[in-house]
């Protein structure tokens, strides 16, 4: 009798392990963009973005885990100069060429997270791997902004925010015009994702 009481008490004392509640999210492509900036000849900063990307994420608030997988369409690079006019090529065409993104051969750039760090309830950092021009390197993205809640109009559950990071393009073999056109690329990613 005593043993059953003790065992019962021991079982009752085990912290109640909530079952993992993994939520699945899909990136909203109309409100999610990878923006980047690079130094130009030491004079100014050129900003650009990729117009087309897609991705999915998972979030487990109880276990403080998150993961994300994003695929960026490299040919969708857009820096405001896309019409060649009388020139041989526009800047965006040059960026799509083998000098830079080589989009014919590498139509996609991907990011796959490997670890997530939370600050309380908020996602603070994502460690992962970025694959560009067929080369894979680590990348850490810092969440400057993070919020989950209901969309004010359609009421769907969503998470959104802004993440930043830096890469050296030469790490991926993209060496054209370094350092006149900077090696260090700053990334600024605005994103919104709906719960599936």
């Amino acid at each position: 009798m005593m043993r059953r009481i003790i065992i019962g008490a021991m079982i009752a004392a085990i912290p109640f392990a909530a079952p993992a509640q993994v939520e699945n999210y899909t990136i909203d492509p109309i409100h999610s963009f990878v923006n980047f900036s690079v130094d130009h000849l030491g004079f100014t900063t050129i900003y650009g973005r990729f117009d087309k990307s897609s991705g999915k994420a998972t979030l487990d608030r109880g276990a403080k885990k998150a993961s994300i997988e994003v695929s960026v369409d490299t040919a969708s690079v857009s820096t405001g100069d896309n019409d060649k006019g009388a020139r041989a090529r526009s800047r965006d065409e040059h960026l799509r060429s083998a000098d830079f993104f080589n989009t014919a051969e590498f139509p996609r750039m991907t990011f796959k997270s490997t670890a997530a760090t939370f600050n309380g309830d908020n996602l603070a950092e994502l460690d992962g791997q970025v694959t560009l021009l067929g080369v894979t390197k680590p990348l850490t993205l810092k969440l400057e902004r993070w919020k989950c809640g209901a969309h004010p109009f359609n009421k769907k559950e969503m998470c959104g925010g802004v993440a930043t990071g830096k890469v050296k393009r030469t790490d991926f073999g993209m060496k054209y015009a370094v350092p006149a056109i900077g090696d260090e690329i700053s990334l600024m990613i605005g994103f919104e994702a709906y719960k599936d």
Partner: protein
Amino acid sequence: MKQIVAGLAFMLLPSAGVASPESYTFDPRHTFVHFGVDHNDFSTIWGRFDRSSGKFTIDRQAKTGTLEVVVETASVSTGDGVRGDRPRSRDEHLRSPDFFNSAEFPRMLYKASTVKFNGEVPVELQGQLTLLGVSRPVTLAVDRWKCAPHAVTKRMICGGNATGALKRSEYGMKWGIPATGDDVKILVTFEAIKD
């Protein structure tokens, strides 16, 4: 004696070198007006205007300058320009009367006539922005500035970054506030070639 004193006094005047205002034209392929606005309190949407043109003058000795930039409102670009099966894309919506009304107001104009210097470096522009036919003061902080010969063309270039902010409702652009933010952050990245 009076003449000697006058002569000495004249020699003591700071050497007023011939005023040297220089004039520059913005390179449209390396000059863009970017903006950022809050979206539903979840994220930030950035955009830019693909087409703008302008000039500035600068006189480093007199510490004066002027600037005039014209932005084509229809060139607004936020990454969603193809509607697909929707009634309109975001960029089309921005060109509509809900926002820039680019059919009626094809241009936005910024004119600055006051420039604050730190030594020979301009650090602030005070001017007027005319958007949707409404003119209001906008100050831009020059965060980055460098003048030097272009490494390849050898022409004299001045380039940099400038930032500012405005409330779009002050120009009558009220659609979607506050879900789509009223506060707009402005970033101008520029390169200009000496005339």
